[in-house]
């Protein structure tokens, strides 16, 4: 019998990757928004994501809904542990989500909703980063429940991962605008992408090193022989991808910098997977301990096997409809 628990861990992992790939750049545009000129540039930046942000955000619901369905125990432990960052993220998403509509509905207060868009995007991103850091540094679990206080998530490390994700999403946002816009806005985006790339690499380095000190499990995974021969490929690949990223920027490619920036994120997620596998609550609960019963797994797998390819197909179609460069009046 194949182990459906591993397949479900893979599906949740896929949802997280899909979320970062798709929502990362539109949160990033929110983070960078105040730096764009009021008027044409801001409208173009907003229009480049207006038709797709809602679908992108659905992957966040897929991730957490999938977690509830496939690993209910993990869902029940993680969310109370991350109470404050999760509430902050949700409220941030409220502000930025409505800003897409409200800024057009109320030109007199557009400045206000633009700020709400930025602040909401930063808070949501920062909270996601903090959540990641808090999980990595280990949460207090007793029996089937979280047993720490309501500030346990707060640490220098979690603040560092929070900041790292803000930089990372901002990079994705800048690369997306390089791809999707023209003229001055595009040039501005390229400049930002170059600087954010360096900043992100510094962040990745710092977070990686700090991670090694958190739990013996991580240290052992990464540095003990012969495992190190495999794990060393991740930083090596990071160097190569970084080189390709900057080369594509220099060659003024449209889509390539975005794709290489995504590859950078991909490598971070691979590194994360190597650290925590096979845990769903890092260093606390394994995927098998938290797994839903076989019947739940089978039932959902039927749905996922049929629906995920269909979802990806019409998502791709929607991106295809809104392909090419965007202007202040929407897609050309």
């Amino acid at each position: 019998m194949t182990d459906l628990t591993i397949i479900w861990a893979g599906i949740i992992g896929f949802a997280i990757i899909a979320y970062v790939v798709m929502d990362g750049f539109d949160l990033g545009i929110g983070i960078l928004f105040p730096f764009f000129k009021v008027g044409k540039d801001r409208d173009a930046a907003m229009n480049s994501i207006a038709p797709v942000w809602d679908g992108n955000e659905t992957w966040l619901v897929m991730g957490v809904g999938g977690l509830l369905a496939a690993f209910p125990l993990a869902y029940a432990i993680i969310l109370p542990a991350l109470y404050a960052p999760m509430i902050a993220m949700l409220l941030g998403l409220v502000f930025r989500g409505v800003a897409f509509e409200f800024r057009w509905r109320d030109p007199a207060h557009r400045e206000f909703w633009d700020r709400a868009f930025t602040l909401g995007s930063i808070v949501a991103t920062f909270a996601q980063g903090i959540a990641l850091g808090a999980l990595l540094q280990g949460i207090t679990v007793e029996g089937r429940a979280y047993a720490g206080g309501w500030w346990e998530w707060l640490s220098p490390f979690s603040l560092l991962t929070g900041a790292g994700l803000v930089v990372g999403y901002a990079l994705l946002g800048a690369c997306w605008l390089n791809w999707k816009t023209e003229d001055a806005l595009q040039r501005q985006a390229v400049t930002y992408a170059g600087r954010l790339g360096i900043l992100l690499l510094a962040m990745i380095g710092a977070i990686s090193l700090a991670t090694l000190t958190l739990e013996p499990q991580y240290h052992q995974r990464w540095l003990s022989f012969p495992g190190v021969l495999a794990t060393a490929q991740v930083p090596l690949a990071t160097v190569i991808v970084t080189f390709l990223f900057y080369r594509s920027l220099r060659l003024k490619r449209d889509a390539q910098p975005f794709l290489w920036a995504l590859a950078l994120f991909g490598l971070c997620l691979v590194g994360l997977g190597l650290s925590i596998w096979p845990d769903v609550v890092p260093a606390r609960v394994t995927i098998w301990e938290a797994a839903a019963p076989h019947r739940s797994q089978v039932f959902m797998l039927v749905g996922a096997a049929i629906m995920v390819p269909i979802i990806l197909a019409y998502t791709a179609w929607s991106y295809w409809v809104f392909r090419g460069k965007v202007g202040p009046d929407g897609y050309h």
Partner: protein
Amino acid sequence: MIEQDWAILLARIQFAFTVSFHFLFPAFTIGLASFLAVLEGLWLKTGKGVYANLYRYWLKIFAVVFAMGVVSGIVMSYQFGTNWSVFSDKAGPVIGPLMAYEVLTAFFLEAGFLGVMLFGINKVGRKLHFVATLAVALGTFISAFWILSVNSWMQTPAGFEMGANGQFLPGDSWLPIIFNPSFPYRLVHTVLAAYLTTAFAVGGVGAWHLLKNRQNPGARKMFSMAMWMAAIVAPIQVVAGDFHGLNTLEHQPVKVMAMEGHYQSHPDGAPLILFGIPNSKEKRVDYAIEIPKASSLILKHDPNAPLKGLDTVPDADEPPVGIVFWAFRIMVGLGMAMVGIGLWSLFARVRRRLYDMTWLHRAAVAMGPSGFIAVLAGWVTTEVGRQPFTIHGLLRTADSASPLDAPAVAASLLAFVVVYFAVFGMGIWYLLRLMKKPPEAHEAALDGMPIRSAGITPAAAVIEGEGA
């Protein structure tokens, strides 16, 4: 109260607050998406410009409502875990997959086609755009299907086994779980409620503009369509509600006792209490105005049939009677008023004065928000009526909450209240502002979209003729 009780009470208030706010938006979008699909379908079929104009008029409103529904809905999907983690751990194997199906079959469908629906008509053509509208409408319905299945399972749990670790586990088949005893009734009742909510909102807007200008063709058309819905769907809803009530009597009799205000058992036929003030301390309804034996007649179809009261239930298993009693009366009262408006509009139509009866229009304006209030009142009736359980009869609310400190929940509740009132308050104000504008013959598309010529007249002009 000890701190744990405070934490649970605050968590309950927070859930009630966030879900009530959220529910307003899908209650509107479910109906509005279908309305838009009908408008676009009629436009495609007849080529009449009035349908295209109404489509655009309501699409702008839909976009705002939908955005608020999305962001308030994401909150709900997290809140099961942040605040009700013990419930999530125990019920997750059963309800988790149903919610996952909601995401897979509904949320992505709505969100994936929304972009094309809002911004894509110039890009994909009329037919494909109609498909996108249909997909969004279908998505809203599928979403209602799954989430009401989950809710119904919490009301009338079926098809499960108890695991050694205290979890509810699915049995051999998922059908008894999905189609649990109260689900078909709740689904029909709730979806009809969403349609009626939309019909009265649309009718109210149409009536408002008829009061200003009886000749506005858009206002006439939307008012007429809304009044057809009121005349046809409101009576059906009364019947559906009656069936739902009988189903509740069978599976959750205690909830019906609270709805009826029956503190005492009535061995020879129970009275129907129209109004009164439930007094849970003295276990009676003060100042009751009642019709003898009518409750037995409605619930048992026999005026002398015995009906048990709350005296047969331990106090610890009773829901708060006052809230359920009043919420139920508000819902039923508004439902009856809806039927009344529907009949009135039929009368006006027969007399060929549908667009001229000022008092009908005023009444329709007053009834514009009635659907939202009725939906919330109905929701309170069924949810508060389920107390003190999260999973009826099996898992108590007090045993379902996350191990959180009361100050944490108090802080988040405060944040939700402030943000929701501010943000959604603004949103609702924007909606009212959009509704205040009369539908025009050159109804503009969404802002941020390329708009060149604005000609929908002559009738043959098409939307895609206006784009880049």
